[in-house]
C-alpha cells in the first residue's frame, strides 16, 4: 500500500479545514475528534490501486508563517485553496507556490489549485472561474472549483493529486548488479 503525504495550504477562512474534514470524514459524525492519530488518514482507490493519504492541513496556524517551510518539506503533493468569495485569498497563492518550489528545489511539484465555496451565489463570487484556470495554467497544475458544503469535487482533488504524484515518480532503474565490495 502506497502512502501519500498531502499538504493543504491557503489563507485563513477559505474553508480548508472543511474541505479536509469532508474528504477524510465524509459524513458528519457526532463524535468527531480531531486529536487522534488517524484523524487525517484516509484510504482511497485511484486507478484501481488502494492508497493511504495522510493529509496535513495547516488550518488555524496560517499566521505561524515560519512553519510553512516545515509543512512543505514533508509534503509530496499540495492543495492550494482559495475562496472564490475573497480576492485576497486568491492573490496570496502565487507566493505560496513560489515558496513550495523553493523549498522543494524543483520546477514542478504535484499540485492542485482549488477555488473553494463554489456553492455561493453569483453575486458573492469575486474570483472568476477563468481567473482560476489562468493561474493554474501558469502554475502548470490542475484546477478545480469545489464546495465542501455541497460536496462538490472534494475527493476529485485528492485523486488528481495522487495521479500527479504517481506520474511524477518515474521508476528508477535499479543498479544493474550488486557487487560485493571488500573494504
Amino acid at each position, binding site marked *: 500500500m502506497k502512502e501519500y503525504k498531502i499538504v493543504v495550504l491557503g489563507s485563513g477562512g477559505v474553508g480548508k479545514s472543511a474541505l479536509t474534514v469532508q474528504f477524510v470524514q*465524509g459524513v*458528519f459524525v457526532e463524535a468527531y475528534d480531531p486529536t487522534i492519530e488517524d484523524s487525517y488518514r484516509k484510504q482511497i482507490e485511484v486507478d484501481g490501486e488502494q492508497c493511504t493519504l495522510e493529509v496535513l492541513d495547516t488550518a488555524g496556524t496560517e499566521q505561524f508563517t515560519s512553519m510553512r517551510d516545515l509543512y512543505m518539506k514533508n509534503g509530496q503533493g499540495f492543495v492550494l485553496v482559495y475562496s472564490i468569495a475573497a480576492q485576497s485569498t486568491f492573490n496570496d497563492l502565487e507566493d505560496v507556490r513560489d515558496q513550495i518550489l*523553493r523549498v522543494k528545489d524543483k520546477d514542478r511539484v504535484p499540485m492542485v489549485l482549488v477555488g473553494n465555496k463554489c456553492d455561493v451565489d453569483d453575486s458573492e463570487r469575486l474570483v472568476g472561474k477563468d481567473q482560476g484556470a489562468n493561474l493554474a495554467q501558469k502554475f502548470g497544475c490542475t484546477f478545480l472549483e469545489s464546495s465542501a458544503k455541497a460536496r462538490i469535487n472534494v475527493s476529485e482533488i485528492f485523486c488528481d493529486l495522487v495521479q500527479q504524484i504517481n506520474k511524477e515518480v518515474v521508476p528508477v532503474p535499479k543498479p544493474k548488479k550488486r557487487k560485493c565490495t571488500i573494504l
Partner: protein
Amino acid sequence: MLVSLAQQQILYLQAEAEESRLKVYGKNAADQRYESNAKSYDDADAKNTTKKSSQEKDASGNTSSPDSELSRNCCAHAKCFPLFRRAKYYRKEKSKQPPPMLMKKDNCRFWGEEKDKDSVWGVFLKKVRYQRPSAIVQIVQAGGNHNIPGNAAGETEKQNGSESPDESQGEIAHLMWETVRIKVLRAGTLEKVVEAVANDDTDVQATHLSVFLATYRTFATAPQVLSEILSIYKKATTDMVRKSMLDALHVWLDTFPEDFEQGSEGYDCLHKTVLPFTQEENLKSLSLKVQYKLRARKKMKKAASVHSLRTSSPLQIKTYCLMSIPESHFARQLTYFDKELFLNLRVWECLGQLWKRRCGCPTVQATVEQFNALSGRVVATVLLDQSATIQMRAKYLDKWIRIAQELRQLKNFSSLKAIISGLESNPVFRLSKVWNLVSKDRIAIYSQLSQIFSEENNRMAQRTLLEMEGTAKFPTQSKSPKDRRFFTRVLRGPGAASRLAAAAENDTPNGTIPYLGTFLTDLTFIDSAIPDRVHENLINFEKRRKEFEILAQLKLLQGSAKGYRLDEDPYFTTWFNSLVVLDDKVAYELSLAIQPDRNPVKGHRKNDSFTSNSSSENTEQALQRKGSIPSSNESSIMYSPTTGNSTANGSGVLSVNPEFIVVKVSSPSKGDVMYKSIMVGNSDHTPKVIASALEKLGMEEEDPKNFKLVQVLPHKELKFPPNANVFYALDTSVHPTDIRLEVRPNAASIHNNNNTISHTHSKNSVSKLSTRSS
C-alpha cells in the same frame, strides 16, 4: 528515580486534596464555590478531566464499576497525568460503532433523548452513593434487592449497584447506590441554554456553566446573555433557579473580567441593568459585588500600566550579542516572555470560530507574533552578518540548538518549536555546508528535539509528550542510568546531571508552555466538522462541550505555567527586540549568497540524492522521507552520511541513543492495511509494547500474555523473545517510517480467545470501513 517517585506521590496527594475539595463543593452546592474567587472555573476543569478518566475506567472494566474509591483514585490519577488522549481513543472506537443503545459515561447510562420545541436534552441515568431522602436530587429508584418505588413516575430503571455485605442489617444499610436521572442539554435556544445553568445535579450544573461561559461568544454577545440571565432571574419560580442565575453572574465576573472592561458592551450593559438594583433585596448583594469587582479591576489596571512604563524605558547599558548570552539565561528569558503571554491568554479566543475571523483575539495574536519573532530572529542571526565564515555560522546553529535544549528542560514547547521552525526554514535548512560543521552530537540532539514536533500521525509525538509532562513538574526521565545520561545530555548538555539534580533538590517548580498551534488547529477542525445549529436552528451545545474539552486542557496547562519562577532581564528584552527579522525573499537571497545553488539543473538533485543513497528503495519511498537534516551529497564524510534525510528517526540516531522510536503496529485480523503508531521507548520490553499496541488497536480487553510480537520485514519476520528490549531488538535496516510490528495471538491461546478476538476485530474493521468508505 526516587525523586520522581516522590514527586508523583506528592502530586497524587495534592490531587486527592483537590478531589475532596470537589466533594465538599458538590455537597454544599454553590454556596462555597463562588466565594473562593475564580477557583470554581478550575474546579470545573478538573471535573471535566476526571469525568473522562472515569469514563475510560468504565470502558476497560466493562460493567460500570460502582466503587467510588476506585473512581477517586482514578480521578486523582487523572489530575496528575491527564489522560485526555487515551480516553479519546476509546471514544473514537465507540463512535465507529453503530449508534450505541447504552452509552456509558462516567457511571452514567444514556437513557434517551428528550425533545421539545426549543431544546434537546440527553437523559442519563447516573449511579451515585445513596443519600438520605433529604437529598436534593430526583431519585428514580434505589436499593439493593429491594425496590423502593421511584418518585419519578413512569421511569423505572434496573439498579445494578454493588450489594452491601451487611444487607441484613436493616433497610438503610444496604442502600449503597441509587440511580438518579440527569438531564444534559444538547441543543437549545439561547434562553434554554442559559436556563440550563440551573440543574439539579451540581456536577452537571458546574460543567454546563463552565462550558457556557467559555464558549458563549460563538453564539451570543455579552449583553444578550446578561439580559437573558436577568429575565430568567425575574421570571424564576424557584429559589434554585434564582440562585443559579446569581451564581452564574458571579462566576462570570470572576473568571472573565475582560467581558466587562470599561468601554465594552458588557460594561455598559452591566451598568444599565445590574447596578441600579441596589434597592432590590436579592439583587443588592450582586450589585454591590459588581461594583466592588469593577473597582478592584481598575486598581489592578493602574498597577499594570505603571509596570509596563517601567519596563519600556530604554535600556542600553549592557551590550548583548547572541554568543555572549548563556544558553540557560537565554532560554529562561524566552520562557519569561512566553509565560507572560500564556498566562494572559484568554483561552476562549482560540475557539475556531473566533480565531478564524481574526478579530478580537489579541492574546492569541500576541502569542503568534512572539513565535514568529523568535523564528525570524533565528533565521536572521544565522544569515545576516555578512562577514561571518561558515564556521561562525555553524556556531550560531550550535548555539540555537543549545538554547533549544534548555527550552526542552524548561518544558517551553512554544519557543522550542519556534527555534526548530527557524532552523528548519528553507533559507537556513538548505545550508548543508554550514550544517556539516555542527558537531555530530549536537545534530543528534537537534534531531531528537525536532522529532518532538513531527507532523507524522497527527502530531502524535508532541501530543503524547504534552500528555505525559503537561502537569508534571519535570520532564520525564528514563529509567536506566545509561539512558538517563543521554537524556540529561539532550536536556542540558554535558555535565548537566548535577545541575539537574540540584534543581530537583531545590524543587524549583516548572510549568509547561504548549505550542498553541496544535490547539488552534484542533479547535478549527471541530468548528468545521460540527454544525453550530441543529434541530432547526437550536444552538448545538454538544459542540461547545467538545470545544471546552480542549479549552480545559489549555486552562490546566495555564495553571501549571504559574509554576515558573522567572524574572525578567530588561537588557535581554531590549536586545531581543532590537534584532532584525528578514523578509522571506531577502532571507532566501542571503542564503543563496552563503551557499549558491550548486546544481542549477533543477528537478533532479533531490531525486538523485535519494536514489543514490539506497538502492533497495524505490523512489516513492524515498520521497516519503521526512527531512530533518539537510541532505547533501557532500555530507558523506559526516554524520549519518547517506541517509541524511532520515536521521530524525532513523538508524543514524540509534547510534547515539534516542529516547524513543515511532513504529507502526497492526494485528493480523485487522488486516494489514490498518495500522496505528506507538512509541517504543529505549527501556520498553516486549510485554509493555504488546500492551500498548493492544490498547492502541482497541483490543485492550485482551490479555497481553496471549500475544506475541513480530516485526514484519520485506522478506522475513523477526519474532521478539517474551522479554526483549524491543527498542534495541528492532531491525532498523528498513526505512525508519516503515518499521512495522504485528501482535499475534499465541498458538496456545488461540482456542481460548479466538472468538473474542475475531469478534472485536470484525466489529472494529466493519466500523472503520463504514466511516472511511464515505
